[in-house]
């Protein structure tokens, strides 16, 4: 059973490597295939962290341009999806930091007023309410929540990626969960 599982992994890896080799040689058609396979996951990450669909589209494009520029460095030591995901996280967090610097000049205070009842209550289905509530979280809490609870990063990894103390990551995650719980209970 375990052997079969490994065989499947190797087979998938070989197929991916073939695609990657073609992209590395500059094959744009192959790159489009790669893009189509991974765009949903990348866009979901961008959208959830930046909470702005238009900006998420730009970030998604930035991610794939970055993938195109750096794919020569991909050696196949990890799954292609993991590597692309890591590129996406880096692009999004670099943008996040620059956005934060800009916002720091104009932001007054994070509070619950960012949640609009009219927007969450009029939507169909709990999943959309949750997406809406995540989008309404304060930026840093949102980014940490998405990385930890949605994407499965550990606090130590988030701390390194975002240049924060582990304690800050934990505190912001707790804050995000409390805010989400509160807004979803309304």
């Amino acid at each position, binding site marked *: 059973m375990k052997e079969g599982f490994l065989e499947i992994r190797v087979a998938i890896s070989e197929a991916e490597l073939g695609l990657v080799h073609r992209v590395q040689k500059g094959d744009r058609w192959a790159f489009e295939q790669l893009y189509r396979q991974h765009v949903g996951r990348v866009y979901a990450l961008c959208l959830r962290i930046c909470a*702005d669909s238009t*900006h998420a589209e730009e970030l998604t494009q930035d991610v794939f341009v970055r993938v195109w520029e750096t794919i020569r460095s991909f050696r196949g030591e990890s799954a292609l999806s993991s590597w692309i995901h890591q590129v996406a996280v880096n692009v999004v967090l670099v943008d996040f930091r620059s956005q934060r610097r800009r916002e720091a000049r104009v932001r007054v205070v994070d509070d619950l007023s960012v949640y609009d009842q009219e927007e969450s209550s009029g939507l169909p289905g709990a*999943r959309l309410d949750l997406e809406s509530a995540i989008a309404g979280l304060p930026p840093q809490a949102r980014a940490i929540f998405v990385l930890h609870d949605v994407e499965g990063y550990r606090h130590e990894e988030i701390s390194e990626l975002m240049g924060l103390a582990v304690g800050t990551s934990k505190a912001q995650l707790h804050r995000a969960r409390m805010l989400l719980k509160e807004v979803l209970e309304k």
Partner: protein
Amino acid sequence: MNCLEVRTRLSDYIDHDLPSIERQEVEQHLNQCEMCRQELERLLALHSQVASLAREISPPHDLWPGVERRIAGETVPEKKWLRLLRHRKNGVMKADRKRILLGSVPREGQAVWVKRLIPAGIGLAILAGVLLILTRQETATWKVARLEGTPKIGTGTISNGAELKVGEWLETDATSRAKLNVGLIGSVDVQPNTRLRLLQAKPTDHRLALEHGTIQASIWAPPRLFFVETPSGTAVDLGCEYLLHVDENGAGTLQVTSGWVALKYGDRESIIPAGATCLTRPGQGPGTPFLEDASENFRAALNKFDFENGGVGALHVILTEARNIDSITLWHLFFRTPPAERATVYDRLAALVPPPDGVTREGMLQGNQEMIKAWQKHLNLGMKPWWRFWQ
């Protein structure tokens, strides 16, 4: 544990991130308290909802043509000001969130750009209004009182009822001192030969830039509301009193007299408790905190280790000279030394302050989080749980 203590730990509890002793205490409380059990269930329900979120979301329209143009080098980068205008954000704008939820983002293309000119014009007008309001809020002031001599704000001397505005400089000469009210949360005694500027005066961000000189800060608000930026690091108040000196070269000395202060520079952070001092250097950030009564040899070696690539030689002197009350220094060093030397630091620290039951050498060297927290708590170096709510 009472309800408040348990609820502050529930997040770590569901992540299996609590030391075993605390975990048992939380579980004992949960067995007896219906309200806290319900709170836990709500958190678990949230957890389960999050787990059901889609891993993939399709963009509202095809982004490939844009990617293809860019990798072919056909596109001209978007003007930065236009990008800013389109993506101005203070939190999440309603329109943006509606687009996320309803998927009504228009398709890319030249025609769309024309259509965007009208909303862009409206956006510009709104932005101007927002900036006007925010600019007025930015002009919040802090009261300044003259204590001695003739301290100045800008080029003018301080009179009764003087106020320091955001962006203004306060300067004292060799014979003058001033007292600055930090909004409603504390005060700063500005010592002679000091030059500082008020950067932010918001309820959530009280921020000074200390170019050079000495200040004594007393803050009685929750942590992380008062910041002092210096050329070699930012002092983050964690509920405390401290003395901060910055010399003409930008090097700093922070002495904490009450509570705790964090010193940050890039990714490097030192946490300094009352009775300890920490030095900072431009381009290098904060060194390792040490107690003020540490021996001369200890301090000199620490200085070499932190700022002069003292390496193993300096580390050996530090470990030899360390007393059991120098655990704050050794604790920081444990995380800053390369893996090859980390075991040596562990051994010395363990000899001075034996770790509590359950903490092993192997576990600590492997970065076991439960063990790190347990020993940190044992050394009285842990952050108080309530701090964590004031990020």
